[in-house]
């Protein structure tokens, strides 16, 4: 039931792009994306809903393929502040958000 994220870890140089993928075996109501920095709480980035509606961060984009139950988070022109662990959360039934194991992103100068 837990969504699967890939890759598990990625290292970037400032300015480079990255894609993080999230895949579920269950039909989804929505997909959430959060970023957690070491020792801090997860912070909301984006929600993607069935039907194409999106809500979230202006500088981050994502896609949601409802038929395949897959979502991708696109990080472009990465900055040092993008470093952290990214979690996707899949909503299968009302309000119950199940998180993946995380993707650790490191952006180097």
């Amino acid at each position: 039931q837990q969504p699967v994220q890939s890759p598990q870890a990625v290292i970037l140089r400032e300015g480079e792009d990255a894609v993080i993928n999230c895949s579920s075996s269950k039909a989804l109501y929505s997909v959430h994306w959060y970023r957690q920095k070491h020792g801090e709480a997860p912070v909301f980035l984006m929600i993607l809903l069935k039907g194409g509606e999106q809500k979230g961060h202006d500088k981050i984009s994502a896609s949601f393929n409802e038929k395949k139950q897959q979502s991708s988070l696109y990080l472009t022109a990465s900055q040092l502040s993008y470093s952290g662990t990214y979690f996707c959360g899949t909503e299968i039934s009302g309000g119950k958000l199940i998180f993946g194991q995380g993707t650790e992103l490191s952006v180097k100068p």
Partner: protein
Amino acid sequence: DAGVTQSPTHLIKTRGQQVTLRCSPKSGHDTVSWYQQALGQGPQFIFQYYEEEERQRGNFPDRFSGHQFPNYSSELNVNALLLGDSALYLCASSGDTEPYNSPLHFGNGTRLTVT
């Protein structure tokens, strides 16, 4: 605008003891979810409270119980603590006007260590 606040920040307990963790949701939020996060893992859903009722529950034993008060604050209780209960416990609040598209706002968590 106060965000989600949790107390205490750290706690050390002995196996077999009981613990109560507390959470005050973000102003305007009426739904509280609790998560357990082991080191290096994603948050694991414990349960969600809305209108003082447990609305959803994850795969956690009955030793984990909760409560929501009329002011929307919440408590997580864990009985008969095991070493494996050592983790960061996160509380997240959300507005319930649109249950399928409400961002979670997390508190900084309570770090529980069971010895």
